[in-house]
């Protein structure tokens, strides 16, 4: 038995799987199923967005102008770059390069911090101008009576997204701790890859949120 353990890099898969490969595939498929639930959760919000935009196109046009495109664009660049560093962390884990895993996880974490800082300035700017969701809306520059609806969608969609970013940062810390404990090897890097999936999904959601929120034509 012990020789087997060595050939799989010291990793012993859970006993109910035939092999580490099976375990990896099962974990990955589980993650894909989770991604499906995420698509449908954000999906409900995108449906609400689509319907209200179809009902009040001129309101979306007016309200969207009050979002800061440069901040949204900055965050898009940050998030795409962080997706890239996350991929590089996964590649490093597949190759067993501990130092590079930590480097790229660290970069991803820093970029996520950057995303949240930009978000903080964005939100506080909006709140300062009385641009709040629903009944809390007190801004007088935006004249369309249904405008609070747009900002309700804005806060809920970007808010849930930002929550995902925070969760992702926690997962990165968790991965870094496990990396430092030498728990990952080319034979076992499932958590790194799956957190990578999660992070790319967060990126994917933002890829849609950015043009839909900030760039309403």
């Amino acid at each position, binding site marked *: 038995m012990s020789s087997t353990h060595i050939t*799989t890099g010291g990793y012993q898969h859970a006993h109910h799987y035939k092999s580490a490969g099976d375990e990896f595939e099962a974990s*990955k498929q589980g993650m*894909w199923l989770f991604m499906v639930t995420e698509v449908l959760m954000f999906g409900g919000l995108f449906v609400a967005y689509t319907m209200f935009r179809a009902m009040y196109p001129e309101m979306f046009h007016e309200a969207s102008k009050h979002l800061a495109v440069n901040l949204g664009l900055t965050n898009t660049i940050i998030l795409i770059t962080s997706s890239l560093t996350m*991929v590089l962390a996964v590649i490093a884990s597949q190759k067993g390069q501990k130092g590079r895993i930590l480097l790229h996880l660290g970069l991803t974490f820093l970029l996520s911090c950057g995303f949240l800082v930009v978000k903080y300035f964005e939100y506080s700017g909006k709140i300062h101008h009385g641009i709040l969701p629903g009944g809390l809306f007190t801004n007088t520059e935006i004249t369309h009576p249904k405008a609070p609806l747009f900002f309700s969608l804005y806060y809920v969609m970007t808010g849930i997204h930002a929550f995902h970013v925070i969760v992702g940062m926690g997962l990165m810390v968790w991965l870094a701790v496990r990396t430092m404990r030498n728990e990952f090897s080319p034979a076992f890097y499932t958590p790194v890859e799956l957190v990578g999936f999660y992070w*790319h999904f967060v990126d994917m959601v933002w*890829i849609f949120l950015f043009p*839909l929120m900030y760039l*309403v034509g």
Partner: protein
Amino acid sequence: MSDHNEKHQHEGQEHHHFILPERTAVAVGLALLVLTGVTVWVAGIDFGRLNFTIALLIAVVKASLVGLVFMGLKYDRKENGLIFVTSFLFLAIFIALTATDLLFRGDVYVKGPLVAASGKSQFKKPWISTTELVAKGKTLYEQQCVACHGAQGRGDGPAGAGLNPKPRNLTAAEGWKNGHKATGIFKTLTQGLNQMPVFSSLSTDDRWSLTQYVLSMGPAAEKDTAADFAALKIDPTKDDGGAGAGEESKSIPVEVAIDLLAVPEQKAQR
């Protein structure tokens, strides 16, 4: 035991997965950044309604790059890709079915030969008869009422023959349950009465026009009292055409809806 070990060893070797070349990862990252630039650039150009489609299209391309390369769907087992793509299929169904309901609500009222049910009233005080109201009401009467109430309003239309009670003779002086006055007729049109269906599918203006035409067929109308107006939530001092007056809800009876939906050809001929 040694067999078992060998099996493990063998599968341990199988556990070599595709490792994305770093160059590919960086190239895709750059492509995503370039496409982000394109998104912003394109948004600055006015393509009208196409802007939404273009923005979505670029987003789909970007998301596909992320999914195929960063998430490795391109190199993964096909079933994982199928699982993920299916979720978007269901999202599309979600959007489409919601759209067929939400975005087409009100079409039952609006389509057809009638004036749009929504929008501001053209009239100021439509409970006071004008020749314009009566003329408009006559046209509507010939479309909506003749079948039961008859061309002369005597309640002798062919569709009304089998009804019990019989359709109202609109030329009669007596027996008006809601009163032979503007508010009374309007109330009947809006809320229905016995076999008389609800006509709240018609716009408020249309119902007032019909009211004035119906009153013009019979003897002189009674005067509307303050209580009559109050019951319909109309302020008779305002010039708002009694918008939304007396309506219980925005719904229409099932049979009216079926009639409106099921026989578009007949409606077109009317």
